[in-house]
């Protein structure tokens, strides 16, 4: 555990040193504030609270932004150290290879945690001052932040897998962008197109739920929009998730699986790797 912490704090310090964390906090905070303040205007006399609206708009934004930030953080993590030669020296120290991966993972998740909770959380505090907030709204907002961290962790893990598989940093960067396109844009487009063509003949609700669960980003979307009554009513999808048999536990388990599987694969490849 001590080893993990030493390695994690190194990543954390790197993040602070190169202003990475500061930049992420500013980006997330500003966007959250802008979306929330602008987004809360049209609620008008509708019963939806400003906080719930913020959760909806931020969840839609995070689906794009968080995977991008996470991949930017992780694609270089291994291939960069192979290329520069720092990995070779590191592995002659009393550090096991799984500790290297998990230490980095811990560090990068911590960076993301700080960025999300400072950026989104800061915006939340300002919103509370401006609009006031209910306990429900707060809960939905905080769990949205936690879910975002989970989503980020998924893409950090995916980024490591890319990073351990490719030979050059440039390839890793390209592959990471491809991964982002597939999970954030293309998969949904494909699914949407499929539904249009199918017209409900083959793809029933069961199959559709399954198809949604395959994508970590869709899982994240459902998780945010359906778990709190206020939010799901405002989003106009009240009760849909529970009808489809998608419980919060199931959705979170899917995300956890999306973290564990790429990490395990990364470790497997890394263990076999010769330097």
């Amino acid at each position: 555990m001590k080893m993990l912490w030493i390695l994690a704090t190194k990543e954390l310090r790197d993040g602070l040193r190169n202003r990475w964390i500061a930049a992420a906090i500013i980006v997330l905070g500003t966007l959250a504030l802008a979306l929330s303040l602008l987004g809360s205007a049209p609620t008008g006399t509708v019963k939806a609270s400003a906080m719930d609206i913020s959760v909806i708009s931020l969840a839609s934004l995070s689906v794009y932004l968080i995977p991008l930030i996470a991949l930017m953080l992780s694609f270089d993590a291994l291939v960069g150290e192979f290329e520069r030669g720092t990995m070779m020296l590191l592995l002659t120290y009393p550090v096991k290879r799984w500790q290297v991966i998990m230490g980095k993972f811990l560090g990068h998740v911590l960076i993301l945690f700080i960025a999300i909770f400072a950026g989104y959380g800061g915006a939340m505090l300002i919103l509370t001052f401006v609009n006031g907030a209910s306990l429900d709204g707060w809960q939905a907002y905080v769990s949205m932040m936690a879910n975002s961290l989970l989503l980020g962790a998924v893409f950090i893990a995916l980024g490591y897998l890319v990073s351990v598989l490719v030979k050059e940093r440039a390839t890793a960067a390209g592959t990471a962008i491809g991964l982002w396109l597939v999970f954030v844009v293309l998969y949904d487009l494909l699914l949407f197109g499929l539904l249009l063509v199918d017209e409900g003949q083959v793809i029933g609700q069961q199959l559709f739920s399954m198809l949604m669960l395959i994508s970590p980003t869709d899982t994240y979307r459902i998780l945010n929009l359906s778990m709190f009554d206020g939010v799901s009513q405002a989003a106009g999808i009240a009760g849909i998730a529970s009808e489809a048999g998608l419980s919060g536990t199931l959705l979170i388990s899917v995300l956890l699986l999306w973290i564990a599987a790429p990490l395990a694969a990364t470790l497997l490849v890394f263990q076999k790797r010769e330097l």
Partner: protein
Amino acid sequence: MTSNKTNNVISLHAVKKRYGNETVVSDVSFDIQSGECVVLVGHNGAGKTTLMKLMLGLTRPSSGEVNVLGANPAVSSAIAQHKTLGYLPESVAFYEAMTGREVLAFYARLKEASTVDCDNLLDVVGLAHAAKRRVGTYSKGMRQRLGLAQAMLGNPQLLFLDEPTTGLDPILRQQFYQLIDALHKEGATSVISSHALNEVEARANRFIIMKAGNMIASGTLDELYQLAALPVRLKVSVTPGQTANVAERLGSATNISEINDQVLNLTCINGEKMPLIRRITELGEVVNDLQIMPPKLDEVYSHFMNNHRTDGGQP
């Protein structure tokens, strides 16, 4: 796997390493005992770095056995032993965004060495003034010094130094070897790769000469001299004008390589050296001076390099 009675810290048995079709190390076996300072000698690409990586567990042999500190270094249970191990890679790379002090402290924590060591070591390698600067701004020589400092962390018992003195100025080289000597006095074992032979000559207990992945010779300096059987040179200064006379008196069996008015240069194989010296001293007052010049280490080295043809046929 431990065989304490032989006191072997490192033992390689019939080790082969192939990368794809290329054989980088073929059939190398040697033992290194506790407290030894062994120098791996060879051209670039002779397999020195690969041997080090094999001993460090960074790569696995294609066949054969590597045993370091009583265990296979490539298995993860052996990694705890790395606390007593220091390594300086051939071209050392660091985390550029960290300062020299931070880099060293990071490595010290991994080795569970005291961070007080860091300041001392920075001082010893002459980086105290640059401790708070980012490694990214360091020159090649400064990086090499930082590399040495990290290898020395936590009083290592086993040192692997891959061309340690490249990029160091003469004074620093001296200091560096003093450091190594100090560690040796405490019983440390070291494996150094080098092609600057004269520099390590005095420190090495044993040399392992590598060529194109093969171990072509191994032994102490004396053993290598004997193996090489290179001629000893004698320079005899005589009373001016007497060289022809002296040559005659020494007999026709004597191998005279050069002769002028006052100097004779003789060569003989090591076994005939003493009889020849006796004959020279018996010549009496006509001999003014006698210098005996054993073969230089470089000559021994090039002897092995040139006379050993391997399958690879690398010059």
